[in-house]
């Protein structure tokens, strides 16, 4: 605001409405998760989010643009949650524990974000060049590099490390989200279960 704000009123005043932006984004994510990319249109989204199509087009050029902006937002949120209280300098066990806890929090606090990420991470409609994952990737790579240098971790292909270190975790979380195990009884991931699994994973990864 400056002194002119009181005198000069533009012909058309559009105020960035954070709540409206949020409503559009959350509705779009829900629609994409439930109906897929083919099941959604800008008109359907405008109606569901309670805004005019014109308002929607202020924020997004078209469906592809919307999908890409949403992907960027979801990834930024994921990176923020995943990197909280985490440092690449941590020991293998401590770092993985923080990663598991943070990622579990992302899955439970942002269920639609997680589903969206799973659905579209390999989608050809996402322009991956536009999504900046550098900071997150760098942090994860440094963590592994440090663990190898400390001789805590065996040298192995990144894919092998990921499958053991995170694949196990995501399998466990899948049972948690479905709320049933293979035996069809109610299953919840507790800290104790997570710790027990982590111990085995760390043992397998250690030199």
């Amino acid at each position, binding site marked *: 605001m400056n002194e002119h704000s009181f005198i000069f009123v533009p012909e*058309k005043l*559009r105020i960035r409405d954070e709540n409206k932006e949020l409503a559009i984004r959350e509705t779009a994510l829900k629609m994409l998760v439930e109906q897929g990319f083919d099941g959604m249109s*800008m008109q359907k989204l405008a109606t569901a989010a309670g805004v*005019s199509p014109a308002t929607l087009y*202020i924020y997004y050029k078209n469906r592809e643009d919307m999908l890409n902006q949403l992907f960027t937002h979801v990834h930024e949120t994921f990176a923020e949650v995943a990197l909280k209280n985490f440092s690449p300098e941590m020991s293998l066990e401590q770092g993985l524990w923080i990663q598991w806890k943070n990622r579990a929090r992302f899955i439970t606090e942002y269920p639609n974000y997680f589903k969206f990420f799973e659905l579209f991470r390999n989608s050809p409609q996402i322009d991956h060049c536009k999504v900046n994952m550098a900071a997150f990737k760098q942090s994860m790579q440094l963590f592994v590099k440090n663990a190898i240098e400390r001789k805590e971790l065996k040298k192995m292909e990144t894919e092998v490390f990921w499958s053991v270190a995170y694949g196990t975790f995501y399998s466990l979380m899948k049972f948690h989200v479905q709320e049933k195990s293979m035996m069809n009884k109610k299953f919840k991931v507790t800290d104790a279960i997570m710790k027990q699994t982590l111990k085995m994973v760390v043992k397998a990864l250690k030199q």
Partner: protein
Amino acid sequence: MNQIELSHIHIFKTNINNDVEKQKISTLLNNNPLIEDWSVDCEDVDCVLRVVGSKLLVSDIIKIINQAGFFCVELEG
């Protein structure tokens, strides 16, 4: 979300519904120094034209599109 001033974005309903038609307005809009960015969503029922520019007049854009032989009205938010 890009940080373009929202009041610099103008939204129109048109009947530009394919790439060949889009090509017909492409040169006109690309060569206009007042237009910073533009796009048409041919997939949408309203074939929405989105134009960005701080010094643009809605009436001028409508005139350009009309002269190219297309329908164009501003969509109110």
